[in-house]
């Protein structure tokens, strides 16, 4: 319990440090907080078990915190009216094109895989 509390405090302190830094550097506070915690972990040389468990739990249920913004976004989406189809098409097309190019670049330019562990596309697609 003590370790869990300490992990929560570590997250909170990192965020507060990030917030302080964001007053000087024009970057998102959470990102700067992330760098602070990253620096601490690099200094420690490992991730403490309690912090790992806490972070894994929080990140697994991250989606919960996106429900309010999704509902709030509807207010803005409604204002798009006849532009809505173009808005969705822009997201669809740009996602398709950028992923197509990233996939091609990855296949073409990644260094040889030493483990020679290629995917079995057939079985993967069923997953």
């Amino acid at each position, binding site marked *: 319990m003590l370790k869990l509390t300490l992990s929560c405090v570590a*997250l909170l302190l*990192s*965020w507060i440090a*990030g917030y302080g830094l964001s007053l000087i550097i*024009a*970057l*998102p*506070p*959470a*990102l700067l*907080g*992330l760098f602070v*915690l990253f620096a601490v*972990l690099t200094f420690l040389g490992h*991730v403490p078990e309690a912090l*790992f468990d806490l*972070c894994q739990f*929080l990140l697994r249920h*991250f989606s919960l*915190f*996106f*429900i*309010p913004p*999704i*509902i*709030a*976004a*509807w*207010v*803005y*989406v409604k204002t798009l009216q006849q*532009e809505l189809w*173009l*808005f969705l098409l*822009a*997201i*669809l*097309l*740009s*996602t*398709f*094109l*950028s*992923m*197509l*190019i*990233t*996939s091609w*670049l*990855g*296949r073409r*330019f*990644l260094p040889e895989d030493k483990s020679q*562990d*290629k*995917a*079995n*596309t057939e079985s*993967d697609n069923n*997953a």
Partner: protein
Amino acid sequence: MLDGQSWPYLESGVWVFITLIAYMCALYIFRVSKNNLMFHPIIIAALMVAGLCIASNTSFADYALYSSPMGWLLGPITVALAVPVYQQLQYLIAAGWRGFWVVLCGGMLAPVFTILIMSLGEFSTDIKLSSLTKSITTPLAIDTANLIGGVPELAAAIVIITGLMGVLLSRLIFKITHNNDQRAQGLALGTIAHAIGTSHALQLSQKTGVYSSMALCVNGLVTAIVLPLFFYFFGA
């Protein structure tokens, strides 16, 4: 809305509780549907909450206000991403500079294509700015959109739509590009479809998941650093 009144503790508590219950139900439905993407917990939970808002005559704007305490937690939780970033470091080194450039190119192309296509219509600046963060993980997108003058809520919705579309399109894309390299599949999923792509990549294989997770971290960090600095210096 508040208009100088005290904070609506009761409404706030009730709606946060409802959101939590809706999320737990959505998780159960997702599991029962054998992780079918059409039943993604975010979609189902948002539909449930939206339905309850309509049924109880609560406007979406009021719901956003009542549930805002959940937003306060988003910052400290985003910091938790430091742990996977720290753990993915060895895979970033294994993928080398080439892997890094692949993620960087993909991460740059996604917002460029969106802006190009959007320029065909008459979209307001805040909608265009909100779509620039479409391929990075939601918490970073919300913060970054806020800094560059976009609408954080809209940015979150665009990110989630992009993630779902990316996963749905991935099988076709891997077929077109003859991509059967687990690492390259992971990079594409993580770079473009962020966390939603990564959870799909983990279903494909452990290695795909690891590379996807690495790409998600790299693209998220680079975009969250480059975009605000770009707007800061060029004042676009």
